[in-house]
Each structure stands twice: as C-alpha cells, then as structure tokens.
C-alpha cells in the first residue's frame, strides 16, 4: 500500500482530501509541519508520495529534499519520465503538487492525483481572470485619451502629462490605467 504524506501548511482544508484518500485505500500521514522540519519529517516518515498545495511557500524546501535525496536509495522527484505532462499540468492548475519516490509506476499515481485534484479546493480565480482580461484590451487607448485630457487641462506636453500620471499612480501604488480612468471620469463629470 502506498504511503502518502499530506503537507498541511496553507489555509486550504485537507481534511476531506485525507478522508477521501483513506477511503480509496491509501495510508495517509497528515502533517502540519514548519519549513525547517520538513526535510527531517520526510526522511523519518519515508512516504512514497508527498502531496503539497501548489501555493505553499514550502515547495522550495521540497526542492532541497529532491536534490539531497538524489544520492540516497529513495530519490524523490517531482516528475517521472513516464508521466503524462498533461496530467502534471492539470494537477498544477488545480493546485496540487506531487512528489514521488522514483520507480513508482505512473499508473499507480493516477488514482491518487485524481482524488487530490477533485478534493483540493478548486481555484475559482482562473475564471475571474478571464473576465478581467476582456476588460483590459483597450487600455492603451484609454491611457492615450487621459494623456490628451491632461495635456489640454494643464497646457503641458506629452512627456509632462505622462510624468504627472505616473507619479500619481506610483505614489498611490496604482496602475497607470487606474489613474487614466480617474482622469477620464473626472473629465466627463466636469463637462
């Protein structure tokens, strides 16, 4: 039976994932572990598979574990040669990163990844990004428009108008497009 270590160090709830993996017949170790203790815990628990949230900052610690384990009898890897890259891409998109002891057959990994991908809280952000994108397409035009308004109002040249807009944006930690929108809105109001 494969031993799965579930690293639990982000706000995502892994409780349901643990239960689902156990129901599917896997031996699951659930670890809330600090970055510093992670390499030692992996060495002690000797899991066959380590699952970790793609958003976990401790992923770089796992990278160290991979490199160090290269010279050991149980090398731990992120990808295996026979793995389908589409599966890895899908896993990353759904927020799961899997580390595997080299030599474990990819087909044995598939049911684990399937459960993990289904049970990790899915990423709604992607869909929202698509909406945001459609709105961004004429950014350039609006920046130009705001620049024109500013040149007229301040009776200044193009460079000066750009500088004024950028200074405003940067000091307020905003995007130039946000300042441009404000200028356009203000101009409409004053007309």
């Amino acid at each position, binding site marked *: 039976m494969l031993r799965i270590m579930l690293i639990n160090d982000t706000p995502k709830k892994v409780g349901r994932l643990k239960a689902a993996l156990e129901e599917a017949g896997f031996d699951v170790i659930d670890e809330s572990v600090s*970055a*510093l203790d992670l*390499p030692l815990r992996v060495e002690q628990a000797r899991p066959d598979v380590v699952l970790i949230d*793609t*958003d*976990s*900052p*401790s*992923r*770089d*610690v*796992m*990278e*160290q574990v*991979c*490199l160090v384990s290269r010279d050991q009898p149980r090398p731990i*890897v*992120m*990808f295996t*040669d026979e793995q389908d*890259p589409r599966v*890895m*891409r899908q896993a*990353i*998109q759904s927020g799961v*990163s899997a*580390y595997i002891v080299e030599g474990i057959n990819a087909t044995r990994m598939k049911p684990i990844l399937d459960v993990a991908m289904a049970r990790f809280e899915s990423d709604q952000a992607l869909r929202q*990004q698509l909406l945001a*994108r459609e709105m*961004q*397409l004429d*950014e*350039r035009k609006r*920046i130009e428009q705001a620049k024109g308004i500013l040149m007229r109002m301040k009776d200044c040249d193009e460079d000066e108008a*750009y500088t004024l*807009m*950028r*200074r405003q*944006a*940067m*000091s307020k*930690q*905003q*995007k*130039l*497009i946000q300042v441009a929108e404000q200028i356009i809105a203000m101009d409409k109001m004053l007309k």
Partner: protein
Amino acid sequence: MSNQLDAAQATHKDTPPSTNAVQASHAWVDGSDAPEKPLLNLGFMALTDSAPLIVAATQGFAQSQGLTLELKRQPSWSTLRDKLATGELDAAQNLYGLVYAMHLGLGGSPVTPMAVLMNLNHNGQAITLSRRLREAGVNNGKSLCEFIRQSDKPLRLAQTFPTGTHAMWLNFYLGSLGLDPRTDIESVVIPPAQMVDYLARGDIDGFCAGEPWGAQAISTGAGFTLITSQQIWPDHPEKVLSTRADFIAQYPNTARALMRAVLEASQFIELSQQNREDTAALISGRDYVNAPTDSIAARFLGRYEDGLGFAWQDAHAMRFFAGGQVNVPYLSDASWFLSQFRRWGLLEADLDYAAVVNQVQQLALYREVAQSLGIPSPSAANRHSLLCDAQPWDGTDPEAYAQAFSVGMKPACA
C-alpha cells in the same frame, strides 16, 4: 530563432512533449511586427528585484508596446518553475540557477529548453547573521570562520532555493573563507518571507536572501549584515527575465515587445531620484512586494547600515539599468553559475558550457532590441569580473575555473 530551438532540443533527447500543442492556435502575424500574443502572464516573486517588471506592467510601458502584462505573484520558485514550464506563465522573473536547472533537467524539473532574455538587476542581496552570533563576537568572515571551527554543532544557515543565486553567494563566500558549505555548516531552505522570524527565534543562525529581508532583520534587531552580495561580487548578475525557448520561436515579436517594455521601465526607474523613490513606493504595495515602504526604500536607494554601527551610501547598490550595462545577458554571467553547479557537485560531469549558454542567453536578440531603443550594448559576449576571493572571472574556461577552487568538487574532510 527556430534553429536555436532545434539546437536546444537536439542536445536533450529526452525532452518531454513541449507545450506547442496548447499554443498552436496562436498564428503568426504576417508582415507586421505587432505582438502575436498581446496578453501575457508574467510571473514574479515578492522581492525588490521585481521592480522593472512591476513598473513595466503597471505604468504604461507594456501598453505602448501593444502588450498587456498580467502580473502573477508566485508563492515559491518551484511553483514559478512549474507554471513557466507548463505554459501557464508566458515569461517570468527568474534565478540564473533555476533557468539552467530547468534547461538541464536538474532537481525537480523536467528538461525544458529555456531562454534568458535579459538581466533584470545587479546587486542588492546580503548574508545576515543572528544577534546571538554577534554577541558571541562574530562580526566578519574571519571571526565567523573561527566560530565555526571551534563550535561542536554546525551553524544552520538558510538560503532560498537549492540551485538559486542565494545558495551560490553563500557557498561562494564560505568557500572563500576556506569553509566547505556541504560539510562545515547545515544548509537549509526557508521561504524568504519567513527568514526573519526563524532568525529571531534562534531556529537558524543566519541567512542569505534578497531585500527587504536583510534590512528587516536589522530593523527588528534579529541580526546584522555580515556581507552584502555586492561585496562578494561587485555588480554581480542577480535576477533575469526568462521564458521558454519555444515561446521565442513561436512569438518572436511578442518577445521583443516584452523586452522593450521591461528595458524602458528599467531605464525609467533610474532616470531620477524621484523615480527611484516613486518605484519604492509602488512596489511596496499589497499586490507586489507587500512590505512597508520604509523597509524597502533605504537599501533600494543605496542607503545601507549593517546593524553593527556602520552606515554607508553603497556604490554598488541594487541597480536595474546603469546605461544598459545591467541588462546585457552576458554569456560569462551564465557560465559562472554553471561553474558553481559543477564546483558543488550539482553537475557531475563536465559539460559543453559554451553550447549550453549560447542556447539559453539571448544575446543577439537583446542587442537588436537595445539598438532599436538607442541603448548601447557592447559587442563582447563576456565581461571581466573580480570576485571577493581575488580571482578574476571572464568566462573563458568555466571548467578550469570550477576545478581551481581549493574548496569544492570532492567534498572536503570536515
């Protein structure tokens, strides 16, 4: 450019299926230099080094090249790597060590032919040690060396990524003191944003990382600066702008437009003191570096203090442009990192350094883009450097350079 891609793939027979399939729907734009892909996902980490990307994406530099850059902050270098490899990110800020690890298939990454488009910054990292060590009399390399040799428990020093620049600066500095980082200390990886907490708790004795973490260790009293990275190598290459080799082959105009936007943003940051200050204010925002402006601004503007009572205006502080000198993707910058991989056993066999760096460093493309903006770029492919061990580095023979260190290659006896 397609020859370059072929060359990269030819050297790696085990290259996994590329991401071409996903992107094949984007056709070439014939007879136009407009970007073939106007919307790019650009990966970055919460570090002050990211300034040119944040400025390019948010202050209209991308738009004037016909691009919209969607900034994607990444929680770790590993995740940045995976998203870049699978095409979820089009381009990203990167570590030399990570780009080449991806290209060669080291560590947790499959072989992914890569491209370094340009350097993003020089300098601005540091090695920080704990207050406990300062109280024990450690205040420079010599006293650190004595402390380590007398101590019965190895010091635990953290870096940010096993093949990353911080690991290489730390290793190189310890090596220059005659210490072997593989046996004389315990080297651990800690996410940068957690460094200061671990140091304050005494869980680690020191760390090598980017800013603002070194400055924060001093302002909170947790530690002091042992040495800055620019003291290890004045004007050393730090972060780069990277993409996959297949991206350039498929979207050559987009790659150029991206480079122009970032290069113009780099130039803008250094145009005046006011612009530098504004940039520090911008990048400290919640969506970017997410740290108090005060903790970013001082070292960003070159004002250093080391927590031992010394303060100075640094002549080699973090820089992004310097008349274009920063951004040239010199072959010797890249082969230095390969020489260090070799030195510390990350690469077991001698490799064809020249072939590898010629595939990855996009020197010709960079020159073309710089020229189109009237930014001077040198004809030399290598540059001359002098590092803190007093050894010159000019990129001519990386293998001989790697072999010549008194510490390195075969692990030294502890």
